[in-house]
């Protein structure tokens, strides 16, 4: 009886195995990169031109977020402060600190300080700060406890599935209006976040969009 399988088929299992390995390796690599914080850059902490310590300004000095991020309640962008805002205090306080040199230079030259952007949503996603902070979503939910950071880093992935997890279940993050800018807030003793969130959701008629048009225009 002649050979039923041609000769080249002897190597077929090995070839298939190698292909499967390569494919599996590539898939693992893709998942490893794209499905983990490596891709979304959680923990990204670039060096800023001026090492602005939020912990000092907010926690120790008690400044409100909105002193610098002044338009967060009215605009889509939460603005970074302009040089004038820094100079309001630093024309008198720490006025010779070498770390503040870029700010002073900016003030005299008129050239803005170029802060490095940390939190970035894609250009086709239209995130709006004002609608979140006015409706009981704290800065904390996306930015973490910035008030305790010496160097600001990204705390959350800011990916679409992460956005949607809250849009599907806002009760996990809703808090009373007065506590939105209090980044240390925790539910009072005897209450839990979920009950508070559900009550507020009902009371305020919170219905975050889950369709594409909510963010993509």
């Amino acid at each position: 009886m002649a050979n039923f399988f041609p000769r080249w088929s002897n190597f077929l299992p090995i070839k298939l195995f190698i292909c499967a390995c390569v494919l599996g390796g590539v898939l693992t690599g893709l998942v490893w990169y794209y499905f983990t914080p490596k891709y979304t850059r959680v923990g990204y902490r670039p060096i800023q031109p001026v090492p602005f310590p939020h912990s000092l300004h907010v926690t120790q000095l008690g400044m409100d977020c909105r002193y610098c991020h002044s338009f967060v309640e009215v605009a889509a962008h939460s603005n970074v402060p302009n040089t004038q805002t820094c100079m309001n205090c630093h024309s008198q306080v720490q006025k010779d600190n070498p770390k503040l040199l870029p700010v002073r230079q900016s003030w005299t030259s008129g050239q803005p300080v170029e802060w490095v952007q940390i939190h970035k949503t894609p250009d086709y996603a239209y995130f709006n700060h004002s609608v979140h902070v006015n409706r009981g979503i704290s800065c904390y939910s996306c930015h973490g406890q910035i008030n305790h950071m010496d160097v600001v880093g990204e705390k959350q992935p800011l990916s679409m599935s992460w956005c949607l997890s809250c849009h599907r279940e806002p009760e996990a993050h809703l808090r009373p209006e007065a506590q939105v800018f209090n980044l240390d807030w925790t539910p009072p003793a005897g209450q839990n976040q979920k009950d508070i969130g559900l009550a507020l959701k009902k009371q305020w008629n919170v219905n975050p969009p889950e369709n594409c048009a909510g963010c993509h225009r």
Partner: protein
Amino acid sequence: MKTIFHHPPEPEGGKKYWRSLDELAGTPEFRTLLEREFPQGAAEFNDDGLSRRNFLKLMGASTALAGLGLSGCHRPEMHLVPFTKSAEWAIPGKPLFYATSMPGRRGALPLIVTTHDGRPTKVDGNPMHPVTQGASDVFAQASILNLYDPDRSRAFLNSGQVSDSDHFSASLDKIAANLAANGGAGLAFLVEHDNSPTRERLRGEVLKKFPNAAWCVYDPLVNDELARVLEAGGARNAPRIEKADVILALDCDFLGCDEGDVETSRAFAVRRSPEQKTVNRLYVVENRYTLTGGVADHRLRCPASQIGAFALALAREIGRLTGNGGLDPFGGAREPSVNTNFVAGWVEKTAQDLVAHKGRGLVMAGSRQPAAVHLLVQSINAALGNEAVAAMPVATKPGITIGELARNITDKKVNTLFILGGNPVYNAPADLEWAALQKSLPVVIRVGMYEDETSAGCNWHVPAAHYLEAWHDGLASDGSYLSGQPMILPLFGGWSDSDILARLAGLPKPAGPELIQETFRARARATGGDFAAAWNKFLHDGFLENSAPAPKPAAGVADGGAYIRDNANLPTLSGEDAFEVVFISSASVDDGRYANNSWLQELPDPVTKLTWDNAALISPATARKLGIESKSFGQKDFPVVEVSVGNSKIEIAALIAPGHADHSISIPLGYGRKVTGWVGAGAGVDAYPLRTSATPYFAVGAKVRVTGGSYPLALTQDHHTMEGRALVREGTISHYREKPDFAKTMWMDAENAVRNPSLYSHPPMNGLNQWGMVIDLNKCTGCNACVVACQAENNIPIVGKEQVINGREMHWIRNDRYFASWDSLDDDPEMVMEPMLCQHCENAPCETVCPVNATVHSDEGLNVMAYNRCIGTRYCSNNCPFKVRRFNFFDYQQRPVAAQDVPFFGKVSGLKLGPLTEKGSPDTLKMQKNPNVTVRMRGIMEKCTFCVQRIEEAKIAQRVKARDSDKVRVPADVFQVACQQACPAEAIVFGDILPDSGSKVSRLRQDPRGYTLLDYLNVNSRITYLAKIRNPNMEMPGADKVATFDAAQEEKPKG
């Protein structure tokens, strides 16, 4: 088993609605086109020079190049760059709105300009102004693109050498000093039409300093004779269209771009809704289909040169009916003309209707017609006591005409000429030979937006400031005083007219609004009070309250009869070969000033649907006579004809225009520019060589010869066709009064029609607001303002002529122009317009076929498009019954549309070169983009989103306002979508359709005229159309055919 869906049969016989002659004739080319998703070539890659093989070569090379770089793997470091010092009012990411005005031929248009971070991005009408009420027009919408045109003039040129503003100022002062010595003898100004009081004031100042200077105002589309004869008394007669029950328009396109403006469109529309007791009736006599003719209840095709004869015959008939012999200036002695074979009964019945509506009628003549016709019309209006005419003061003193200026130059009476705006070398009457005249002058100083035909050879070419870059003012069409503030500093350091005039008058070049403030001070004095507060209010509102002069009763013209007898030129058009040429203004490029505006070049002409070109419009009968009727069938190649008048001739493609008068050829002006940017280069044929001082608007005695050549035209009339499935519906007023909801049960939607059930389940539409739209076909004139507004708002790219021929134009909203006739040989079809955009079907056919869920339904009833999910299968477009989806076949936003020179390949469009050409659009064009709308890339499907960015902004604003309350539902009518905002006729209404919302659209959806498209398919569209209602005079010839569909339909409601 596969079930083939059978559409209900079209009713046999009766009236047909069609878009092109091909469709009407059912040619094979048309059938092929119909059965394809996109026209031949649109979905393939097989034309000119770039074969599949070459394409693969190029792609291979570019991939290898891209691989070498490997730089795109890391997220780039981005910077946040705040201001150093805060700018007043500026909130990053929030637009600001400023009032200003756009100068125009028929008065300035009050505007509100949206600026994002200091960049003006969108122009809209000023809703506070009592006349325009927020409406705008095509040119205002598109003017923003001219501001950012990268081809604009950027440098001061001194005899062709680059110079600067300081040198120019010094030079100007020297010239002024020289001229002042002899009172300005030899000084002349050639300026454009502008009713700015400040310019008029500065004119006075300059003429005070140089009393011997001459001031000439020229605009090729403004009839100087009318101003001279009719406005001699300092007042002109303006129509009050909203007061008229019966209107007769003689060659007067008062609803189109030609002679209409926002005011006239609005005034006509308010009297058109059939709910009111008296609906106005419109008779139109014209040589070609205009938008006004399309709206008309009765329309007579008549060569433009015979309009005078018509007016005379009408005057005579009205004189006979009213026993007023004075109406005929010739006392019956002169026959109107040898060939006044108007349709029998037309003159008589129209005259009877006008006499029956004595005092409530209105006869209007177009500015193309000579003063004699206007005088006849005035005498008719006066004899009938028509109150719909009012006298308005004339804002500016007339100057000398360009003919007189040319004579002065020939007689060596001029040595220094200032040309402020305009382009006389291109558009002055041909017999003046302006280019040679200009060359003969020692000093010519020219201020212009572009380095164009006129700039060549000037001693100084000065870049002009765009109206959004300069302080100005103006008078609206009702005479109210408008402010004009700059939105941005001059991008290229341009000077405005006022800057030049002020400098000449010895004033410093204004740094701010000083000149306007001085004019304002004089005008506002009457109102008294605090100047600073009044000025701020003026800037904020955009106009000075109550500044419109009260209209006075129309003034009669005493010696009208004598003028008519002396000047009436009633040319004859007898004989087979007699032709007239009519020079019409282009709905896209105006007199040529918008030739480099790509939005306008690609905007289909409202009637012919022609883009990127002009053509000689001829009637089907004329085409038959010339033997070219069959050659125009087909998709792109059109026969070329040679049109000659006297010794001048041009060669131009001929386009058969249904409804055009025989013996008449209409040619739009403004094309065939020789020196312009990349957009205008090569677009169309220049018709100005045929136009002389004696025959500025129409010339008889033209000759036409078929050359045998052909020329490609980009026509969109057959693109995105829908098999004529009863999409547009109309009826007569009597029909409507008997059965108001007739449109619901017409054609395929007959009462017993079966609707298909849906096989798919849909997520619930339970959003707090449900968005929908109503489009009133009765109000829509088809002016295209919505199309450009949508383009500006939604960052819609242009694709270029070649791509339009392939059917790839990107407009999200289009105006389908239908002709309606009872048989294919009918030379008098009716015309109906229907704006077509995504219908946001509740059972959307596109959604069910998308393999990646890139198009889905929102809970508020929107058919939304997630661009980033789209993989470009185009199944959705294939399955869309309305053909409103647009595919980015190329990277229109990032690659140059213009053809590039490629070694070995010749000229190839930059689009096709892809990565081999430079990427990115010019910086200035990027500044125009709306930051709230994604700029789409290649391979993405897009379509109308109902301006989802405005919806979301409104929702966010309401939620921000709600804070810790539950009032999150968007209140009724707090925002408008872009097309609705622009519409001068208020034909488009958008809003929340839920009955309890109290919105305008929810009320209009209950209108009995409402119907939805393709209802029998059970698509449940969110756009309701309101059927068009015509108001025919049943005694007129052909009245039984107007807006009726078939005989049975006509009888049914009566029985």
